[in-house]
């Protein structure tokens, strides 16, 4: 436990509040997720960050202070209490801000059985913090946490090498971990992995630079969080507006409302309405606050167009020069989230942007063995499994690859029987309709009674560029 050094935060009463609010309005919002194995010090770290950045309520600090020492872990640890009381273990969201930024923490439990919770927390995160115990280095769990961050497309992963006080703040120890982390990042294709030596308990390099790590002149954890760009600023996809709703209060106004999924839009820009393919221009970007001269992802806006176009919910308005692709057959990485396993041949509802279609599981390509980072064959995906599957949809999606754009590259699968959210998917590859249909004159009809065999054959045929239609000849 650490000693209570600074009193509870209080602002100067004379401080000019309008000025403060002005500064507040300039802050953006960074979302990060945290994952660590039990006892790596995740709760302590978050508590320390909140406390040192003066983001905790006075009564909360009092309630976890004993003998003038704060138990930082208790400041935030809803999850621990839950573990003990057998209540819910889940993603817990926490909020704090510094003079530069606002933050949302998605605090997720680290154990394998909570893979789906980690994926949930990671799905919207700009940054992931992965905890590493300096005494132990990279464990199987570390690999799991890092690979989930990589899969969910988090552009920056910070490895907080914690408990440096217990290894005497040794540069060699940190250097060793740094090298293995670097190797892991390469294996996982994580664009940027930044190790930081910290002691959550004592506060070294969490918010304030530590004098006990003179060999480290990098930023503290909080300095990193304050400066990394938001994930959305890294997307290079063209303009996309999935239409949520048509707003038509009277004859003279017909607006298409939605949250911009990528890119920037201005009145006069040429756009295409999909799937109809009608080209037109943006007349106005209408909002309650008046018409805008420019809007960008992820703003929620309403567009009016120059020409009449038949557009409804589930359609997409996109940049003419860089439209999304039509995808009715796609390869995706799936995180499986329900206890009923995923099997080939099963049909689910698939929600992608604002449209929901039916999707059939054509094939399970492989399952990821997270501990060894290897793809292994699988004929089912169980709860918390991560796998690569091929899906076929009843109607084409207007999609991008997940790595090009998170919002138009992701989907969820919904169990049609009980409506549970069964899985979360990230589009890895799109088999374009045109590409699949390229010229083969012959037509073969093959009847197969074995769905696994059928899937295999279909796979080979598709690889050979043959158009395959699978149909059921008898009622089940």
């Amino acid at each position, binding site marked *: 436990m650490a000693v209570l050094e600074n009193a509870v935060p209080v602002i100067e009463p004379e401080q000019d509040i309008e000025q403060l609010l002005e500064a507040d309005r300039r*802050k953006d919002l960074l979302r990060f997720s945290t994952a660590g194995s039990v006892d790596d010090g995740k709760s302590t770290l978050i508590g320390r960050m909140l406390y040192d950045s003066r983001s905790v309520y006075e009564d909360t600090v009092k309630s976890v202070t004993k003998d003038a020492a704060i138990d930082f872990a208790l400041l935030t640890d809803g999850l621990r209490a839950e573990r003990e009381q057998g209540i819910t273990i889940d993603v*817990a969201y926490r909020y704090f801000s510094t003079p530069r*930024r606002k933050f949302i923490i998605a605090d997720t439990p680290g154990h394998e059985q909570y893979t789906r919770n980690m994926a949930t927390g990671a799905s919207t995160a700009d940054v992931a913090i992965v905890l590493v115990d300096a005494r132990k280095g990279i464990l199987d769990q570390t690999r799991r946490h890092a690979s989930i961050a990589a899969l969910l497309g988090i552009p920056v992963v910070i490895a907080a090498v914690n408990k440096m006080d217990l290894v005497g703040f040794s540069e060699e120890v940190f250097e060793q971990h*740094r090298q293995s982390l670097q190797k892991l990042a390469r294996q996982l294709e994580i664009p*940027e992995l930044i190790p930081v030596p910290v002691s959550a308990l004592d506060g070294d390099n969490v918010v304030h630079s530590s004098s006990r790590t003179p060999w480290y002149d990098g930023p503290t954890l909080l300095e990193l969080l304050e400066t990394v760009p938001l994930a959305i*600023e890294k997307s290079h996809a063209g303009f996309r507006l999935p239409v949520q*709703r048509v707003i038509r209060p009277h004859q003279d106004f017909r607006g298409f409302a939605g949250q911009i999924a990528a890119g920037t839009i201005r009145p006069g820009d040429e756009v295409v309405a999909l799937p109809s393919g009608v080209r037109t221009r943006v007349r106005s970007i209408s909002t309650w606050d008046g018409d805008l001269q420019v809007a960008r992802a992820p703003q929620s806006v309403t567009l009016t167009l120059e020409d009449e176009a038949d557009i409804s919910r589930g359609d997409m308005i996109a940049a003419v020069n860089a439209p999304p692709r039509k995808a009715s057959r796609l390869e995706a990485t799936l995180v499986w989230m329900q206890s009923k396993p995923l099997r080939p041949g099963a049909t689910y509802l698939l929600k992608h942007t604002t449209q929901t279609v039916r999707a059939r599981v054509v094939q399970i390509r492989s399952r*990821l063995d997270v501990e060894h980072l290897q793809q292994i064959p699988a004929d089912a995906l169980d709860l918390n499994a991560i796998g690569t599957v091929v899906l076929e949809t009843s109607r084409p999606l207007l999609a991008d690859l997940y790595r090009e754009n998170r919002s138009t590259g992701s989907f969820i699968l919904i169990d049609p029987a009980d*409506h549970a959210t069964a899985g979360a998917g990230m589009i890895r590859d799109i088999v374009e309709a045109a590409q699949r249909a390229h010229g083969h004159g012959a037509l073969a009809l093959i009847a197969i009674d074995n769905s696994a065999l059928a899937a295999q054959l279909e796979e080979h045929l598709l690889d050979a560029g043959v158009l395959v239609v699978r149909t059921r000849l008898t009622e089940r």
Partner: protein
Amino acid sequence: MGFTGEVVSPGAGFSGVAGFEHPPEKPELSAARLSHIQLLEAESIHIIREVAAEFQKPVMLYSIGKDSSVMLRLAQKAFHPGPIPFPLLHVDTGYKFREMLEFRDRYTAELGLKLIVWRNEQAIADGANPFALGTQRCCGLLKTQALLDGLKAHGFDAAFGGARRDEEKSRAKERIFSFRDAAGQWDPKNQRPELWNLFNGRIGPGESIRVFPLSNWTELDIWHYIHLEKIPIVPLYFAKERRMLVRGDSLIPIEQPFVKGLPGEEQWVKCRLRSLGCSPCTGAIRSDADTLPKIIAELMAMRNSERANRVIDHDQDGSMEIKKREGYF
């Protein structure tokens, strides 16, 4: 072979031990960066529109408080220039402050909104009050039961609520689409994972969801937004001299006949309310904050969690989670 099927060069942006040889790249549109308030607003509007599109019969729970006021403004923005395509529902316990009811009627009429008021008339006629029943049972009857009955009577399948995750520990895990079974109950173990901005709005017969479009707003964000957007709020939030029962540190509003003071307890105090509930169970705080900037300054200085002033959360640790399971917001 990597399992992502994509080729990124990991070497490029990798920072070495000295840390920051390669500082994160500057965003392209730095001048045009969206502020946190714009980001929160965009997210909330998206949520409100999704619900309006995917549910048969949504309703917005309107508590008359500051969070409801923000939620209502976001709904106006979501459908502008069209009207809000769902009604408001106010669950009236019979113990709301007079100023709240006046504000409610005036403001909703001004905006031309459809307002439904629902009361548990039987319990009110039976004289249910927190002193006789305890706060748990009183809330159970006048709030939770009334809410469930009101939703059921009208057949609403989605109800917007203004709760925020930063309000209270058990709310930190709350979903944005919070699923309720046919009895209106919340099963914390059986909530749907929520990824990206994709919400699963599928429900079976009799089932419903509660939706929390303000989940990611903090108390400061709410006040800041009210200030920025000039959103009207109930005057009880602003400090002025009010007649109060002063008992220890507590300031108890005198609105109901059964709230009786001991001699000398009744005093004029400059005070305000931080959150609006039922008058017998909502304490006021001593304050000079009679403008929004002063309220915000006070909030920044004070840093007591908001619901500490609400009597109801004190009676039992984790009482919020229990209430939520039963159907309370």
